[in-house]
């Protein structure tokens, strides 16, 4: 629930000026002489976790204990097998086999391995799939199948030394909304091959920064920018960074990995919006 902090604080500033933004953006296109902040929309595109996190030793022991407790309080076995399973079916056999296994271990209660594995034994399951994927083993940060129990965020790399990594972003044009701008920029920068669902119409947070002086001299009109982050989820497809936009790479990163790639100021603004899970 980290996002809530930013939502309430950022939105109170962001959305109060949301209606003003449209008129402001319109004025900016006509009166270029006044120095002001450029309004930028960024796509906070994430892939939700695909797997549940691994159980802690305490949780594992707790569930083992509870399985045993439920078993002890359950109805007698003969009543349940006769009713719930067809005679001679595979499911009846596996149920009875499990029960015999438990009976065998009853003398040696310290082990309890039958209860530990009770949640894992799925009839007809071909094999136990590992938590680690091919992408994890190779260290491929561009894959969507890495770190399957964590939320991943899309960062794009620009061809420059400082602040190379950032979320897909771009200026708000004419009278389009923040969300429309973020979606348009995402398609321009990563191609049309990705299906994306916008979680909400309101930004999750904001980040302000000043342009370098040389840049202002060359491009008068704005002396800084205010970036609004629009939360989105990727549904399918993959990002293909557009070289014409000056992008040289992309990565799907966890919260901790994002910290390593971006500047300290950027991290300070972005950190409360990212999920720890």
């Amino acid at each position, binding site marked *: 629930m980290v996002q809530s902090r930013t*939502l309430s604080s950022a939105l109170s500033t962001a959305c109060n000026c949301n209606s003003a933004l449209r008129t402001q953006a319109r004025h900016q296109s006509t009166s270029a002489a006044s120095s002001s902040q450029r309004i930028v929309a960024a796509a906070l595109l994430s892939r939700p976790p695909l797997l549940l996190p691994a159980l802690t030793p*305490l949780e594992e022991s707790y569930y083992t204990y509870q*399985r045993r*407790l439920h078993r002890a309080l359950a109805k007698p076995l003969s009543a349940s097998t006769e*009713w*719930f399973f067809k005679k001679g079916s595979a499911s009846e056999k596996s149920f009875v086999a499990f029960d015999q296994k438990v009976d065998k271990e009853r003398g040696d209660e*310290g082990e309890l391995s039958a209860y530990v594995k009770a949640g894992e034994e*799925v009839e007809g399951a071909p094999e*136990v799939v590992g938590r680690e994927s091919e992408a994890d083993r190779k260290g491929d940060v561009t894959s969507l199948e890495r770190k399957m129990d964590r939320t991943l965020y899309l960062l794009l790399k620009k061809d420059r030394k400082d602040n190379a990594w950032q979320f897909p972003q771009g200026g708000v044009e004419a009278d389009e909304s923040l969300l429309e701008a973020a979606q348009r920029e995402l398609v321009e920068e990563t191609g049309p091959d990705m299906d994306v669902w916008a*979680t909400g119409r309101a930004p999750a947070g904001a980040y302000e920064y000043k342009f370098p002086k040389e840049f202002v001299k060359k491009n008068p009109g704005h002396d800084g920018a205010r970036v609004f982050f629009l939360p989105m989820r990727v549904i399918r497809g993959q990002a293909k960074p557009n070289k014409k936009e000056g992008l040289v790479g992309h990565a799907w990163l966890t919260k901790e990995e994002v910290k390593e790639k971006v500047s300290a100021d950027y991290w300070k603004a972005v950190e409360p919006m990212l999920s720890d899970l």
Partner: protein
Amino acid sequence: MKRVGSLARVAATRPAATRISPAVLSRPFASSSSSSSPADFHRTITPGPTSRSRLKDHYNQTLSHDLLYTLYSHATHTNADALPNPSSRSPMWSPENPYALNRPPPRPKGNRYLVPNPSYTSPESLPVLESIVVETMTTSALSAKSNLLPLLMAYQAITGEVPQSRHPGPYGPGSGKGLVITRSAKKSASFKVRAGAPTGVKVELRGESMYSFLETLVDFVLPRLKTFSGIPLPPASHPRQSPSSTSGVVSFGLPPEAMGLFPQIEINLDQYPKTFGMNIFCVTSARGRGAQDQARALLSGFGAPFVKRG
């Protein structure tokens, strides 16, 4: 969310020192309870969850984060303080009226509940699934009570709950747990119903069993039910202030064919002489204006399909 059972492997690779001693686990059950006699022990014991719930974890990890943004309304969020308190608008007796002495305040007009004001968007105000009530009524129970037996057994298999007993205990009367036999409130000569005649079975699911029921429903039953296109949405003309729009309950019915699609029943469908339809009420914590929309957003996040009425 994919289901991957790799826990056994994780457990195997973990160093032995971090694991909890088996001696703790194998302690006799009675010693962990504060009860004095074996009879008390059975009454006070409350078994906990035997595994974690996939849908609950999905809610905590992903869905709650998304709902925070999806359900955010700027107008509501900023005006939450300024809205007039609905209870201040409720009618009052005149203090001079002798009729009003020691009487409760008059009921508001229009046969409508007082609708609470919408509140700030915050993690605390997000809708949570509180309980699922599953209920079936059958006219065949009126002629013979024993006609409820297959229904009871089917409910026991589907929900994992046992019939509420007459004796005190975790499933005793008033516990709100277990399968409850519903009874008719009024007599009706035309339908040949006596007052208090058993009419069907009802169960309120909470916690782990609630999530596992919903998971079974969404993953195994609804996708295979050919006549089911989705939970119907009310028409746009449906009043926003009606009790059904403000109570935060998503309700829908399933035909008798659906019961045979539950895996617990599917394995020995021949055992059941008859299948029954059921009404399902998903009770969420959403209340007040727009509560129904919030409840639907939550259910939709759990994978329940919704469809517009043609």
